[in-house]
């Protein structure tokens, strides 16, 4: 046994399982890289906050002894000297806060109202605030205008409309797209009709496509319910079937009723009689829905335009009539600020079906 051999080569003389090791020095470029790495870390720690210190330094920095509100002792880095924080000015002391500290016994306080609370150097939060401030500066003028302009004024102003539409995309995507889809095209869910949501890009409105009504819908939400069998418990299964056939026929144009509820096309006399008795109360004698008939609040759909809220196949229509439907749009008034609500109103109005003028 020996782990030293007498080979006269460039080896350390150790050997394990036949493996020897040579006495080559590390490559020069590696050694340089190693030292540069250590220099980098030193420089990095001088530039950025890096070293935790005790509170004594904090006291000197703030001119306050034993201040428990500022336990943030660490080196600030030389970025504190060069970073002027062009946008974010940092939090400042108020007289009330200083008085409160003095009341706690910190009578030696030398800070004045308006002094910076923290020595601003590079901090991740300041960097974020700077970035946000920079972006806000770009949009500040337009955002300021949004506060005072009405939705209709925004739509009429080309430049402001473009800005608002650009601004609306993410707002719409984050708040509306989950139901109405990212393009606002809605969602007709064949497997689960109850998870179907209205298309916002057409001109078929439930509660009105005027800007005032869109704003109202987004702000306060909407709720609509169709009772099972239209609330008429006397309807038989056969009645439901014949109503379903009639509704589908109206949608595809093979049946029609006039404003007085008289059948003008198709042979659905019996079904129309049932319709006028049970459904016309909400959908109107002309089956054109509540909005067309001047009712802004019911949200009963137009059955004559071939646009379906929950699906137009026989099974779904039958299910809708037999079991009713409940639909709800949540209110965004409490979640989004006034400007965001305006922005979304502009987007929904401009998706394709916006109605002009005042609600009528």
């Amino acid at each position, binding site marked *: *046994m*020996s*782990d030293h*051999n007498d080979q006269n080569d460039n*080896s*350390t003389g*150790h*050997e*394990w*399982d*036949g*493996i*020897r*090791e*040579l*006495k*080559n*020095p*590390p*490559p020069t470029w*590696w050694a340089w*890289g*190693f030292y*540069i*790495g*250590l220099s*980098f*870390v030193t420089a*990095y*720690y001088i530039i*950025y*906050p*890096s*070293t*935790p210190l005790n509170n004594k330094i904090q006291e000197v920095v703030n001119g306050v002894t034993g201040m428990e509100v500022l336990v*943030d002792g*660490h*080196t600030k*880095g030389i970025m504190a000297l060069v970073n002027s924080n062009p946008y974010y000015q940092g939090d400042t002391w108020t007289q009330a806060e200083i008085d409160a500290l003095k009341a706690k016994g910190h009578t030696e306080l030398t800070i004045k109202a308006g002094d910076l609370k923290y020595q601003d150097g*590079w*901090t*991740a939060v300041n960097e*974020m605030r700077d970035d946000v401030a920079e*972006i*806000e*500066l*770009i*949009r500040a003028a*337009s955002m300021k205008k949004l506060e005072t302009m009405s939705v209709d004024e925004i739509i009429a102003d080309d430049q402001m409309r*473009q*800005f608002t539409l*650009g*601004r609306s*995309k*993410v707002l*719409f*995507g*984050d708040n509306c*797209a989950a139901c109405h889809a*990212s393009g606002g095209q809605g969602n007709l869910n064949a497997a689960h009709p109850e998870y179907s949501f209205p298309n916002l890009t057409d001109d078929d409105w439930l509660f009105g496509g005027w800007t005032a009504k869109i704003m109202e819908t987004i702000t306060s939400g909407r709720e609509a319910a169709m009772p099972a069998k239209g609330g008429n418990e006397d309807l038989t299964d056969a009645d439901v079937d014949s109503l379903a056939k009639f509704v589908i026929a109206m949608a595809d144009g093979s049946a029609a009723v006039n404003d007085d509820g008289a059948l003008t096309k198709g042979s659905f006399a019996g079904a129309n009689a049932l319709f006028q008795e049970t459904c016309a109360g909400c959908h109107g004698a002309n089956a054109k829905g509540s909005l067309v008939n001047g009712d802004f609040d019911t949200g009963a759909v137009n059955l004559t335009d071939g646009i379906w809220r929950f699906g137009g196949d026989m099974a779904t229509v039958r299910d809708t009539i037999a079991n009713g439907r409940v639909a709800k749009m949540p209110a965004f008034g409490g979640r989004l600020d006034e400007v965001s609500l305006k922005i979304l109103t502009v987007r929904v109005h401009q998706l394709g079906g916006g109605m002009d003028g005042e609600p009528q």
Partner: protein
Amino acid sequence: MSSVAEKDQYNYDIVKFCVITGIVMGVLGTLVGTFVASELAFPWLNMDIAEISFGRLRPVHTNVVIFGFGGFLLYGAGLYMVQHTTHARIAFEKVAWTGVALWLIGCLAVVVTLPLGMTQAKEYHEAEWWIDIILALSWVCLTITFLGTVARRKMSHIYVGLWFFMTMLFMVTYIFVFNGLCIPVDMSFSYSAYAGIHDAMTQWWWGHNAVGFFLTAGFIGVMYYFVPKHANRPIYSYRLSVLHFWSLTFLYVWVGAHHLHYTAIPDWTLSLGAGMSVALIFPSWGGMINGMMTMSGAWDKLRTDPVMRFMVVALAFYGMSTFEGPLMGTKSVNALSHYTDWTVGHVHSGALGWNAMIAIGAMYHMITRMWNTEMASEKLVNLHFWIHLTGAVFYITAMWGSGVLQGLMWRAFDEYGNLVYTFADSVAAMHPFYALRALGGFLVFLGLSIMLFNTIKTIGAVKAGTNTPLRAAD
């Protein structure tokens, strides 16, 4: 050779068990990985079953590949090389077998409990407290055996591969136990001993050093035995191995905070992590250079020996990912890369490129030596190499593309200062990358399946039991 007494032979039985289990774990882990990757590309695959949803199965994948595949490779290769580089049979064999058995029990418990939703919700440390205890006990068994065997060595100097292994044994015990401290409620639930930023700091102190010591120091140790042994060349530089061993060991423990850039962690802590990360590039490269330069005079083996190719390409990937990692650990790059798939790509360039390839190389080497035979099909080994490499490259490039695209989409502003894309837009843009990633993962799984098949055929062809006497005193 039956004339040689057992105590004068290497204990290959335990190594054989670990290697075979490791390959099986690799096949299982990459199969689960391929499935969860496919779920991201085609979400209907979760079939509305909670137990197979991405959130439940993803940690099964990470645990099985890291602790199952990687762990059994470390157990197997560690017990193999410690015997070979001490010229001694392993010490405390019953303790060693207990350790291996506990590790297997721990891994199987992870596979069962995580899909059921029992988790500590700590990344790479998801297993509940009682599984932690099983794994920790197993690790202590391995440590006792390993140190006992080193104490039996028949030479004064300890081989460099063993230094790295011993560092791993010590550090992994330390970080695993401290990160796992908790108050158990029942078998399926516990409260972490830490809260808020302390929890986050401790978690990434563990998380990054699991990479640093389990997947780096341990695997560098493996590299230090199997590369020079397989190439039949001496280690290039003793001094370099000393320098990069100590600098790597000292620097790695600091860098975990770079996982938490732009969070509530104090800025000075993050600077410490970022700075040390950059300083870590060259200590990490020391291992790559020593391995690569060891190849000088043996480069021709790359043309003919796919096992050598596995090892050398592993070193190249190691060099690449230890450059990429520090880059991503700096604040400015991290501002783009954080929370994106770039991180996932980086991890897999280390995991598929470095860890898996050096592990596979070492496994092929050990199989032929322990069963004293050639692989049943050298062509399949070659095929495995190319399939694995293609899969790894598909995976990594897909995640680079996807990650950088995500990062850029999230921070894109139009001329008015408005965000251009919604979050959902960025999700939709990921689809082709996710499909390519799933394909890459599948190829890695396919390669490991070929390896398992080839291994079974190889072992099946070995008729008589073999035993190998300890290396004679030189």
